[in-house]
């Protein structure tokens, strides 16, 4: 239904009986959805409800052409609803109305007894109010007096502003008639309009009827009507009541209280500072929605409007939306969290986020340390003892001693083993209570990418932030990966500020990691940076002994010593060597002896069987010489030695 373009504010005559209604309608037209929502206008028939609704519609559409305005009488609404349901297009009907920005519904009194329309309307009002879209309704009686209407709907209707339009007073009547005469281009004899104004009509429509009669009489009769003729011309109109005639006793008005109330309402509306009224309305709305509004209530204590009060109101709305989203997410993870009070208090947004984080983290904890790597299984020597000591300290007091601990060293020296061992010790030390995230940087990054794809970054982040310790292996991989570094930076800060333990492993020290952001570098260096070196001889011997013991072959001391002499860059190489020897022995079908080992590892040397370095020398060398090069390992034969001495 179209809004009648003749219904405008500028041709609506304002008097004391409708001042409040007009002021409210104007406020609504100027900022739809922001002030009185819903606006409910009621009055007896013919006093200008439809005109005011039309004026709102016209004003809005002339100021913002993109706004979707729907003007509909309740009867039409019911008819459309029935037609939609009958043709199976109920959903389309709903969608159509959900797109409307300003909904104007006339003749709400016809709601009586229409249950399904009431339900549909209630749903629509909720949706529109929730998204800040304006509803204006009119009726011939206040909401509470519309019979047989759902209580919930009544409270919705009454939740905004209810205004009434009273019968126009004498001055307003005169003003209305003068405006009408001007519009029609009719001129009356002076006093005629005033004479007509003295008659009390029940509404403006009847007044217009009377005026039309006078106009017709004057135009058809071709004679100017005199004031004294007015009653004669209108004499047989049943609604004409003569009032305010000279000498008539002043009868107390029947609705003295009502008119007092109207005046007070407009005085309050005028004097209560409008910003406070807005805030108060917001409080009423959000309280009704079940949210705590202490923040807004404090705003009301201010004597002057804070410069950013509108921003605060908007911010409050936004926070509530955020809380709603958080609550929904939380409910998906754990139904019991729905309705938790932190989701009802915008001032506890942080708590709500933490609660959600916990819920999400609990649902899918980050990867933990691998049980295969134990502290017992980790051999210590001078090449790695600093790192191991630091690790032991961390396990004793997580987060207190060295956080972060940054372990670097060449590949295969046992960094991963130590890292996982720390993780396992932390878990065991707390009886399993400590949540340890132990992950390689590569997995960390892959998970992030996956989370980005699925739009679940927050959940992913929450998993790591909820950990009690974060251990990241091969952290050199984050170098040059901006997003991963950023996430790592935030996770680092979140955990570090809470005193949680952080351990990183890398093949290089932080300062040598090209493409590592300074903010991460400085944080890594802010803890303890320790190096794990290639295994020294003592460690090599221990490791060979251990790995060979695990096979069926019993290594003799000579074999062990021979193997330990060989420079090995990493533990991995040692394991590789052991595997190679075992395989060679198996192929030869013989036990693993020094000879087999030599043949496998030094084929060119094993041909000329040279005497082995005496064990005493080796032991001495290990004890006294730190530099391998200073030790003469291969002694010449006895004759050469004698010649040397003789020289």
């Amino acid at each position: 239904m179209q809004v009648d373009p003749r219904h405008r504010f500028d041709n609506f005559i304002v008097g004391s009986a409708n001042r409040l209604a007009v002021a409210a309608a104007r406020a609504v037209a100027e900022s739809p959805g922001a002030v009185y929502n819903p606006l409910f206008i009621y009055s007896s028939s013919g006093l200008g409800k439809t005109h005011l609704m039309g004026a709102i519609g016209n004003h809005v559409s002339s100021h913002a052409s993109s706004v979707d305005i729907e003007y509909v009488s309740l009867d039409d609404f019911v008819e459309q609803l029935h037609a939609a349901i009958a043709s199976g297009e109920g959903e389309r009907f709903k969608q159509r109305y959900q797109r409307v920005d300003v909904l104007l519904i006339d003749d709400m009194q016809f709601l009586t007894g229409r249950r399904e329309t009431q339900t549909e309307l209630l749903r629509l009002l909720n949706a529109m109010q929730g998204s800040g879209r304006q509803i204006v309704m009119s009726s011939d009686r206040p909401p509470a007096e519309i019979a047989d209407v759902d209580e919930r709907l009544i409270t919705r209707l009454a939740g905004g502003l209810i205004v009434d339009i009273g019968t126009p007073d004498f001055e307003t009547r005169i003003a209305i008639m003068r405006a009408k005469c001007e519009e029609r281009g009719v001129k009356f004899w002076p006093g005629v309009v005033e004479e007509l104004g003295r008659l009390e009509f029940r509404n403006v429509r009847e007044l217009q009827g009377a005026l039309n009669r006078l106009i017709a009489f004057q135009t058809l009769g071709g004679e100017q009507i005199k004031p004294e003729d007015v009653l004669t011309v209108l004499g047989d109109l049943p609604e004409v009541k003569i009032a305010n005639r000279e000498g008539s006793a002043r009868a107390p008005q029947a609705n003295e209280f009502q008119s007092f109330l109207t005046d007070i309402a407009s005085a309050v509306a005028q004097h209560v500072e409008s910003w406070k009224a807005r805030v108060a309305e917001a409080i009423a709305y959000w309280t009704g929605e079940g949210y705590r509004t202490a923040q807004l209530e404090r705003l009301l204590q201010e004597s002057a409007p804070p410069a950013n009060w509108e921003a605060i109101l908007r911010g409050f709305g936004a926070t509530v939306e955020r809380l709603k989203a958080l609550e929904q997410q939380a409910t998906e993870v754990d139904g019991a969290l729905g309705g938790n009070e932190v989701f009802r208090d915008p001032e506890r947004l942080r708590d709500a986020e933490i609660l959600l984080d916990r819920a999400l983290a609990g649902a899918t904890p980050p990867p933990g340390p691998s049980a295969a790597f134990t502290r017992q299984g980790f051999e210590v020597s001078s090449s790695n003892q600093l790192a191991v000591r630091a690790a032991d300290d961390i396990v004793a007091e997580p987060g207190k001693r060295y956080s972060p601990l940054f372990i670097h060293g060449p590949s295969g020296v046992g960094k991963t083993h130590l890292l996982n061992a720390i993780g396992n010790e932390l878990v065991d030390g707390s009886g399993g209570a400590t949540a340890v995230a132990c992950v390689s940087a590569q997995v960390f990054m892959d998970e992030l990418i996956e989370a980005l794809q699925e739009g679940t970054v927050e959940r992913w982040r929450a998993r790591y932030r909820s950990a009690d310790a974060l251990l990241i292996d091969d952290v050199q991989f984050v170098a040059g990966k901006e997003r991963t570094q950023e996430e790592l930076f935030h996770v680092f800060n979140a955990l570090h500020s809470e005193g949680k333990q952080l351990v990183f492993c890398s093949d290089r020290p932080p300062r040598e990691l090209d493409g590592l952001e300074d903010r991460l570098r400085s944080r890594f260096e802010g803890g303890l940076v320790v190096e794990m070196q290639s295994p020294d001889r003592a460690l090599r011997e221990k490791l060979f002994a251990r790995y060979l013991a695990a096979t069926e072959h019993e290594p003799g001391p000579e074999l062990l010593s021979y193997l330990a002499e060989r420079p090995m860059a990493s533990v991995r190489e040692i394991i590789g060597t052991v595997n190679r020897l075992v395989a060679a022995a198996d192929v030869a079908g013989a036990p693993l002896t020094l000879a087999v080992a030599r043949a496998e590892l030094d084929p060119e040397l094993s041909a000329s069987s040279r005497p082995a370095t005496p064990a005493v020398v080796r032991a001495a060398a290990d004890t006294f010489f730190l530099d391998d090069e200073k030790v003469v390992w291969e002694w010449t034969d006895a004759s050469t030695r004698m010649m040397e001495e003789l020289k």
Partner: protein
Amino acid sequence: MSLVNYATREITCKIVYYGPGRSGKTTNLHYIYGQVPEDRKGKMVSLATQTDRTLFFDFLPLDLGTISGFTTKFQLYTVPGQVYYQTTRKLVLQGADGVVFVADSQARQLEENIESFQDLHANLAEQGIDARAVPLVIQYNKQDLPRDLILTPAELNDALNFRGVPEFGADALHGPGVFETLRSISELVLKRLSQPVR
């Protein structure tokens, strides 16, 4: 009493009808009460003696519903006019947002009017309130009595209304002037809402 409680979003106006004994203060309240529609009617509390004189005070709560997001309530009080209820008068006057002085228009009551009016100022001053700052309206009641018994509003103005506050002739028994007075004092009180916090 604070007029506007932003925390509870309430506007509460306390209006006190002051004046000499038998000037018609309670009659004002009764007339107003009679005009209030049933659904808005609070309970009018009247503590009257057997001879229908106000013994302590009358209290008429008026619930005006929600206006601009504020629950608006008016509380109308009367004080006992008789000279010897001084303490009660002071008590009722405490926290008043506005005062209606109901004067008896009968010529022979002029002295009582003046005395009561001075009493009002003295009581306000005693509570540390500047009488000029309190919204005040004067009602000349019983204007319906025969001309020869009463003074005209102009004559009464000369005697009482030296501050030039709004004044209304009234016939509280039958209604004329009652709501005009109430409307005027209410608007004066509400006007102070927009003024800076005192």
